[in-house]
């Protein structure tokens, strides 16, 4: 009895350790490598004890100014895409939650199916259209694209959240003299805030890290940080691994911080509707 419990405990510990190692190793490796002197980064056997140096960060700053332009672009695109996706998902989720009708019910299914199509299939044909509209290499095109990919999931998520807000609150507000938009703004949004944050986390993580569409639709002016990092790898005068790891660390930090801070809401978002509140 006692040994079996001990065994289960040991098993759990091993599993958790493996999981932690699996998810933390790449992060730790990148961050540590960015602080190692150049020749020690890929030393065999690996060097675990070293004097941290910020030379790579200094080099990143002096030689790759374009990376920081990329970060600014990423920030603008991520903020815009998140705002767009959150607003659209909240409005749509509200209508899906409160409205009824055959068309509305059927279109939920469509929303989910659309999510299953590989985004690239829809996106490539967009290229000439985006070109014709003169939106190539602009922030707007990435904002709209990124937001679009998350509106379907975001809508379904927001509907689930708003479903949990009793309809009588809408009605009470209606009698209090509120119109639809006021109800949404003053009653629904404050109460669905955890859902809104959950949607925001999804979009932020996606938009911040996205590479493929940024590669297709931007060239110089709206180039995002992941593109600059890829350029570092393809650089003609050889890869400076230290600078690359420094850039990766800078790229990783804000989104990691954001996800850790929003962790609570993310879990709420993933389990929304699982049980009746």
């Amino acid at each position, binding site marked *: 009895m006692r040994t079996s419990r001990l065994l289960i405990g040991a098993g759990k510990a091993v599993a958790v350790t493996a999981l932690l190692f699996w998810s933390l190793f790449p992060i730790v490796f990148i961050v540590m490598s960015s602080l190692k002197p150049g020749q020690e980064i890929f030393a065999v056997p690996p060097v675990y004890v070293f004097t941290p140096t910020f030379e790579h960060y200094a080099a990143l700053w002096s030689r790759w100014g374009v990376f920081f332009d990329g970060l600014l672009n990423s920030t603008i695109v991520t903020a815009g895409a998140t705002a767009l996706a959150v607003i659209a998902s909240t409005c749509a989720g509200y209508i899906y939650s409160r409205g009824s009708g055959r068309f509305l019910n059927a279109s939920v299914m469509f929303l989910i199916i659309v999510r299953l199509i590989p985004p690239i299939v829809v996106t490539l044909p967009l290229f000439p259209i985006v070109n014709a509209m003169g939106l190539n290499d602009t922030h707007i095109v990435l904002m709209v694209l990124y937001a679009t990919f998350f509106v379907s999931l975001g809508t379904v998520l927001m509907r689930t959240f708003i479903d949990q807000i*009793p309809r009588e*609150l809408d*009605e*009470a507000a209606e*009698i209090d*003299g*509120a119109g639809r938009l*006021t109800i949404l703004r*003053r*009653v629904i949004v404050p109460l669905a805030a955890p859902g809104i944050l959950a949607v925001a986390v999804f979009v932020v993580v996606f938009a911040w890290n996205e590479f493929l569409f940024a590669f297709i639709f931007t060239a110089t002016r709206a180039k995002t940080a992941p593109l600059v990092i890829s350029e570092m790898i393809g650089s003609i005068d050889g890869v400076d691994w230290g600078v690359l790891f420094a850039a990766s660390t800078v790229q990783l930090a804000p989104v990691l911080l954001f996800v850790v801070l929003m962790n609570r809401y993310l879990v709420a978002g993933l389990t929304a509707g699982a049980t009746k509140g």
Partner: protein
Amino acid sequence: MAELRLQGVRKTFGAAEIIKGVDIDIADGEFVVFVGPSGCGKSTLLRMVAGLEDISAGDLLIDGKRCNAMEPRERGIAMVFQSYALYPHLSVYDNMSFGLTLNRTPKAEIDARVRDAARILKLEPLLERRPAQLSGGQRQRVAIGRAIVRKPTVFLFDEPLSNLDAALRMDMRMEIARLHRQLGATMIYVTHDQVEAMTLADKIVVLDGGRVQQVGAPIDLYKKPANRFVAGFIGSPKMNFLDVRVTGVSGGVATVESPTVAPVPIGARGFSVGDRAVLGVRPQSLRREPGHGRDGTLRGTVSLVERLGAETIVSLDTASGERALAAIPQDEVFEAGSPVEFRFEPAAAHLFAA
């Protein structure tokens, strides 16, 4: 000041007709209770008055003005919901002031009105709390406060007390009655509880199957129910219904009898000899002692006795297989299985078509 009039009001959901032509007049300052079993359409009717449901046909007039197409906020109404429907993210103060803030009432006036309502409802110490920090009764008072501050011409209550426990319900019932006296506003109150209807109403509207069964003062409904449904719905315990046969008719009086009921003359019109009918006798009309006039008698076997102290409820099985209740206004011992005979005054009995 508000008079309210419903004229031929109907409500259909798809093919189903929920409200089948309702006409009601409500005078200014009147307390009207819509009562009926669940699914009778009383809440739907109230929501139509509120503007939360469309009116499929007919007219709703408030002070002579047709309101069918008006938004809820334009109708001068306030509503108290069964679930209270308080905004969980707002304080009690903000809950009450929400509507006033929306229509840009000056701050000073909002404050005065909220504090006034809080004083009337004894909510002053709770103004800064959130709804989650309140008890059920307090939440209900906040919901009423939210209605009061809007100074509506008509108050609508949708089963406001059914989420409260019995003791609190009685307190709140009295509080609402006091509020009506104090404010003098027109109030429409929906409930399935006939005790609330009897105690609160100036006028009761009994609904069943989407139709008005009877409108009248509570005591008139109790004493002169228009049909068997109203007779069975108003009064507790429920009125006894016994199958009888008409054996004689003369000048507005029908003599009826059954194996259980000795021949008795009942004031009723529209029956002829040989008709089958239903005799309605309230449990409170049944007594052991003989009266002075020609009493009716009801025979049966005691099957169950509930001694409540001040009252004894006797359940008896009749020879024709019916069940009847007698409410004796004192503590009395009955033996289960023993035969028993009750008397009633013919004037207190009712005769309905079978």
